[in-house]
């Protein structure tokens, strides 16, 4: 239960670690080239997306194969609102997570009634449904061509500003997610993950908590999608596809899904792998597949979970 909470004795150490990381992130654009600023903007956005996914998988024990749906919906909401409705930047960006929340409540109502495999299947099916609708509705969404030349304000045309903007929004979201998982609500989610029967016996409505978790994850997933469009200045149909939906899964597995910050480490690795493998090899998907299998079989707790277990083991001996 306490796996995702800080233990009291480490508060100062954690504070210094936090300030250190924050300082490095803030100073990054001054010391590195534009390429790395771009790289870390991507890391930040994928990190946020992976964190939102982990609220479902790691904290609530619900494996969603359709999380890209909300990423895509966030992306398309921003792109369509600025393109077709010529809406203001801030309103369009605020609309992205709200529409994500709205759709995730609707999809969630159908999905969370079902447990385990059924839940995963249903999220997969709904994800494909939304994908197909956006793909075939050419007049509105541009189908396979996507939406290009999405408008962003002048000051966001600069990659450094985009970086700081994404960083600020993501840190806010991270803070909110952290508060949610450390709250009583988060404790209930952990309890549902570990033993839904007992939570039910203690008089709590399991389905409502799961629906809330699904909706919150959808909200933050769509936020990440909106940020990604601001970075790319285009929305493509791939954003909503399965490959994107599996990236956070990979990030959580790699970093450790029972930890809060694990997915962030995973996000750094997958963005780096994507850039490296993309330039050196064609066989991105096979390498990813093999890596996922090896990690899942040999390190089921992920990198951070593995380290945590090691340090805890040392402390106890």
């Amino acid at each position, binding site marked *: 239960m306490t796996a995702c909470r800080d233990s009291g004795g480490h508060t100062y150490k954690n504070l210094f670690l936090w300030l250190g990381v924050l300082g490095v992130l803030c100073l990054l654009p001054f010391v590195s080239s534009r390429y790395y600023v771009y790289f870390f903007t991507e890391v930040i956005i994928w990190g946020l997306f992976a964190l939102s996914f982990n609220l479902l998988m790691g904290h609530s024990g619900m494996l969603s194969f359709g999380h890209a749906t909300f990423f895509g919906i966030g992306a398309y909401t921003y792109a369509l609102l600025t393109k077709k409705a010529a809406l203001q930047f801030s309103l369009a960006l605020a609309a992205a997570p709200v529409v994500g929340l709205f759709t995730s409540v609707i999809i969630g109502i159908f999905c969370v009634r079902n447990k385990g495999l059924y839940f995963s299947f*249903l999220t997969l099916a709904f994800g*494909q449904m939304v994908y197909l609708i956006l793909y075939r509705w050419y007049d509105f969404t541009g189908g396979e061509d996507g939406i290009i030349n999405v408008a962003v304000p002048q000051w966001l045309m600069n990659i450094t500003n985009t970086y700081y903007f994404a960083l600020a929004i993501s840190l806010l979201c991270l803070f909110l997610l952290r508060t949610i998982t450390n709250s009583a609500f988060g404790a209930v989610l952990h309890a549902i993950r570990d033993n839904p029967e007992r939570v039910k016996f203690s008089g709590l409505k399991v389905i409502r908590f799961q629906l809330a978790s699904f909706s919150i994850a959808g909200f933050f997933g769509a936020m990440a999608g909106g940020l990604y469009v601001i970075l790319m200045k285009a929305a493509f149909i791939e954003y909503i596809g399965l490959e994107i939906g599996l990236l956070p899964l990979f990030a959580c597995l790699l970093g450790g899904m029972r930890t809060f910050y694990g997915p962030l480490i995973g996000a750094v690795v997958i963005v780096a792998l994507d850039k490296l493998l993309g330039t050196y090899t064609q066989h991105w998907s096979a390498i990813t597949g093999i890596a996922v299998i090896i990690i899942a079989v040999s390190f*089921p707790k992920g990198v951070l979970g593995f380290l945590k277990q090691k340090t805890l083991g040392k402390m106890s001996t």
Partner: protein
Amino acid sequence: MRSERCGVSERIGSLADLHEVRGEIMFNIFISGIIYSSLVFVVASGLILTLGSLRIINLAHGSLYMLAAYLAYSFFQLFPDHPLYFFLVLLIDFVLLGFLGAAIEVTLFRRIYRSDHILQLVITFGLIWIAQDVIRGAWGVGLKAVPMPEFLSKSITFIDYTISGYNLLIIVVALFVGVGLWFLLSRTNAGMIIRAITNDADMTNCLGINVPMWRTLILGLGCGLAGVAGALVTPWGSLGLGMDWKILMDLVIVIVVGGMGSFTGAVIGALILGQVNAFGILILPKFAIVFGFIVMAIVLVIRPRGLLGRPE
């Protein structure tokens, strides 16, 4: 069915003729639905067999089906067009995919029976990625097509209606697989063991039955069935890299609608899916694929465990 061949528009002379033509079109749509149902059922039956007794849902089942189709494509190019060779390819695909399934069980699944089900799903998902890359590497990204074998392109006419030999073969194979599995599971000693493993694998193991070996055999048989279906589908149209996702979605619909682990449910689910797809194309061609998902959502709202699923 008139004996002389003429266009539909010329034949609509009177109202009676119109009814006859409309009936024929409806029949053809119905049959095309039935054929798709039969095909999906053959793939789904293999998946359900493994799902029940291994307690792992093999998401890569659709990828194995795609691999089988590509293998069959290569074999059909190798062999001359002869009925004997056609059935030989079916057999080869069954055996090859069966061995592949058994190998996957021995090397991978055996390690993860006791894992979290999230990890199990993730691992089978990894297999999808690998299969996709292997197929892309071996056969390329282009669409692949083989000509219809000659003996299957002939039409057979029953009293009033015509059906092509190929369509008839698919239906026959599906019936054969359905009846064969029913016989295997309910009338033989092996079936009894499989049902026992499905109910309680640990207890079956205690009875002195070699459960790991049986699981290898079961996954082999299940993947072999995907192999047969893959070989069967090859002459239908062109093979593309999207096949695995498409069939996986259909499998999800069939299994969820029918109720997880139920063969009768799979038959019903496949029949519903086939008809919904076939008539969906008639009503709203652009969004026909979505209808299957809508049916699934409706079924789950009414019966969260599927039509024939039992509450756990």
